[in-house]
């Protein structure tokens, strides 16, 4: 393991431990009010959505099709494996068949 990777590893580990342990400690200290707890249960999904939004905007049409296929299959089947494999299948379609160039051009200029 070279030194640059070792420092990257340690920095990432410290950041992730701080997030997990710090967040958990705060969660224990907060007052046990039903309304507050219900709100806190909803916030993490907003963070996931805020990460996802820019990725969708910057995606290629083919990637958006893969996303739609994956999420639609998930809503239908209620499990992760088949939808994820199907989405990945769409993503690697250009590896096996010729697809129009516009499908591989990001919508965002």
């Amino acid at each position, binding site marked *: *393991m*070279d030194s*640059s990777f070792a420092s*990257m*590893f340690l*920095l*990432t*580990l410290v*950041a*992730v*431990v701080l*997030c*997990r*342990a*710090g*967040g*958990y*400690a*705060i*969660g*224990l*200290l907060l007052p046990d009010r*039903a*309304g507050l707890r*219900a*709100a*806190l*249960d*909803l*916030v*993490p*999904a*907003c*963070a*996931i*959505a*805020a*990460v*996802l*939004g*820019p990725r*969708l*905007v910057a995606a290629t049409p083919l*990637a958006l099709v*893969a*996303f739609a296929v*994956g999420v639609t299959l*998930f*809503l239908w089947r209620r*499990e*992760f494996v088949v939808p*994820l*494999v199907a*989405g*990945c299948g769409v*993503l*690697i379609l*250009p*590896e096996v068949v010729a697809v129009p160039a516009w499908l591989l051009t990001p919508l*965002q200029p």
Partner: protein
Amino acid sequence: MSTAPDESAFHAAFRFAGSIGIGTGIFGLLYGAACNGAGLSLVATVLFSAAVFTGAAQFTVLPMTDVAWITVFLAALFVSLRLFLMSISLGGHLSHVPWWKQVLAVPIIIDGSWIAALAETRWRMKFAVFTIAGLWIWTNWVVGTALGHLAASLVPRSAVEALAFSGAIFLGMLLAMVARAVPATRAWHWLPSLAVSGAASLVMPLWVAFLLGLGTGIAAIVAGQATGGAGRHDG
């Protein structure tokens, strides 16, 4: 999503997180292949995955070996913000178990284990369901990265690059799963975050777009509570 009253913790954990674990393993295959492409050894890849256990942060910092340490640290911290928020949420769900069990549980806080604890409606079973789900997902992640590293030569680099977007598909499915784990009236509470962060990213730096999206979502939740839209949903 609700739990049958007599369902075992194992059954409930696998119902909530069984396929998330396998999906995480598939995602781990891609990460392992990416690590191989970046020149990391198998041991380093597995150690990194086992200790850090969050694909988003690991993928983000992988190309940052020659970047200033503060940049790496802030990037990892920023990408892991959702873990911070999930951990705050979990503090309220797992506070009834002995403190040493809580300490041992903290390293396996991840999207799937958080959702499993959120969806489990029986308080006395929450910790068991959370732990089984977390360990299952962790095992799949570590094994997936190891296999991905070993099999990297079988997958063309262009395919690995194309599959980088699979993380977004995974996140989309997680959001759909959250929609099933919270009360129906708040199932799509994250849509304002998605829309605002996406639109903002067209004209602003990504980190600003993220914070705007997150802030919008929190504001929508608070507004919803003020109008009585949210209630205690985990019995």
